């Protein structure tokens, strides 16, 4: 993974009327990573994406794409960007191919073979000469992706990329986005409300709420960070086990069951507790730890409100 940021947000602010809806977002996105953009509805995700592609002006701060300021060096900056903003809306009365021709005329150096390659890649070869109005939402999504990748951008921004796709399609897109990031070093930025999706797809996640950045973390760290988890030990003597575990964990954080004991503890504590159990001569048949999903964590962080 290269460490040169492809997208830099520096104290980005947006005011609409007198109301500030984005209060100073700062973070970097690097080539080769899939970056998730997460937040409840109305948190300012789409507004931020619109500012990144130049559809909206910034009220403060700046956004650099490949070192170029999106406001003052718009053409150079945006020529590195491919995007789908919200739904992939295409000209419905044109064919898929005509739509791609349309966008290819707006950038330099997109050949017919490049278009064919993209069509092949998103699996629309059979239907590309049909009108877009006959396409399913999933097909439009694929056409949107082809459109965004035509000019080989180094930054790919996708708003809700798996929206309207069937599970097979979702897996395909996920696989493809990962490949783009890993093999071609593209910075892929996705926003999604499907938290479980983000968990599998993204390397790092930024959470925003009420126009503020709550945190940027790697997906793994994010799920595992700091907080305690429930660990279940399958033991032969529950009462003895309780005594052994109580050296490390307070009583109120333990629950006893039939043939098992559950205790809340940090990850680092698990080996120590296990060692104590063994030293005390208790037979341990199994240890399982309940990992928090991104969803639990997200609800925890954002206060569990307005999540759609």
């Amino acid at each position, binding site marked *: 993974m290269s460490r040169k940021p492809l997208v830099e947000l520096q104290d980005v602010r947006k005011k609409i009327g007198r109301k500030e809806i984005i209060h100073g977002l700062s973070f970097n996105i690097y080539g080769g990573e899939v970056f998730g953009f997460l937040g409840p509805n109305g948190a300012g995700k789409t507004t931020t994406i619109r500012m990144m592609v130049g*559809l909206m002006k910034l009220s403060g701060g700046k956004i650099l794409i490949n070192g170029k300021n999106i406001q003052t060096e718009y053409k150079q900056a945006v020529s590195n960007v491919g995007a789908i903003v919200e739904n992939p809306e*295409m000209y419905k009365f044109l064919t898929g191919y005509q739509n791609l021709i349309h966008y290819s*005329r707006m950038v330099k150096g997109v050949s017919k073979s490049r278009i064919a390659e993209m069509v092949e890649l998103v699996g629309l070869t059979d239907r590309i000469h049909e009108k877009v109005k006959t396409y399913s939402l999933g097909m439009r999504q694929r056409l949107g992706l082809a459109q965004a990748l035509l000019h080989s951008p180094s930054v790919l921004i996708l708003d809700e990329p798996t929206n309207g796709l069937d599970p097979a399609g979702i897996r395909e897109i996920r696989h493809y986005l990962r490949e783009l990031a890993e093999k071609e070093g593209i910075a892929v930025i996705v926003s999604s409300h499907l938290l479980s999706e983000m968990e599998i797809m993204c390397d790092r996640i930024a959470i925003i709420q009420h126009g503020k950045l709550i945190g940027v973390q790697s997906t793994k760290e994010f799920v595992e960070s700091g907080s305690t988890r429930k660990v279940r030990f399958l033991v032969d003597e529950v009462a003895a086990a309780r005594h052994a575990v109580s050296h490390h964990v307070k009583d109120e954080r333990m629950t006893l069951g039939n043939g098992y004991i559950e205790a809340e503890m940090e990850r680092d504590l698990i080996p120590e507790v296990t060692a104590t159990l063994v030293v005390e001569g208790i037979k341990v048949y199994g240890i399982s730890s309940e990992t928090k999903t991104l969803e639990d964590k997200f609800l925890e962080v954002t206060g569990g409100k307005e999540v759609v």
Partner: protein
Amino acid sequence: MSNFIGLIRNENMKIYRRIANLIMLALLIGFIGLNGIITKTEKSAPVKDNWKQELKAENASMEKTMKKEPMMKEHYERLIAINEYRISQGIKPQENKNQWKFVSDSPDAIQFILIFTIIIAGGMVASEFSWGTIKLLLIRPVSRTTILASKYISTLLYALLMIVITFVISWLLGGVLFGFEGSPRSFLSYTDGKVVEENLIWHMWKEYGFASIMLLMMATFAFMMSTVFRNSSLAIGFSIFLSLSGTLIVQFFSSYDWVKYILFANVNLKQYFDGTPFIKGMTLNFSLTVLAVYFLVFIALTWIVFKKRDVAA
């Protein structure tokens, strides 16, 4: 530059690949066809050998009516002068049915072209917003100014194409219905109390030219409405309403001095070449200045709004 031609091709593709717009083209051709059939079947008296006596009699009767209706004085003076010119120069009045006469009547179709152009102009920017495609259109390495210019020029090219089609179809249909003729006859126009002989085709292009001023102004107006309000129905409806009621508005306020600053009082430049100005004291330069100011205001508003707008739709 090749980039810009690409943008124009894009806009053209979006105009001509839509069924609704092709239907408008069919309607225009249908109108010319209908006009041809009506002209063909219409009965008209052949020009007799004693046409000089007939014109004299016509002049005598017109002079009588002219005294009774002083309001119409200028109108009759013109007809009488043309008739006298025919008698003195021996130019036989033409029969209505011939190819070039049919072609030279084709500027009538500009009413349709005006409405169709307003429909195209009114949808040009607003439709991109209602389709949602504006978001994909404006994230390319092309400035908003360039995109707007390509849309505006494509609108004007559409109007131009309509005029060319009207001319070509009229010429073809006129030839088929009335027989092809080589060179057109001359047309008599009356300016500053004098009769002037003109080439009929030159006269026709002048008619197109005068009508195109209205076309240009209203297309620009509809384009502005489309950009500012992002609502094609509003842009089209309001522009057509103004086009139809423009003359009425001018008449309604004709007692006020400021009426001469209204767009529609200036849009008909023909008043300075053939006939008398609508309001005494108005000159060609005055009207050209007023038109230029309106035009620049329309363009500037369109450009500023399009350039500055946050796309949130």
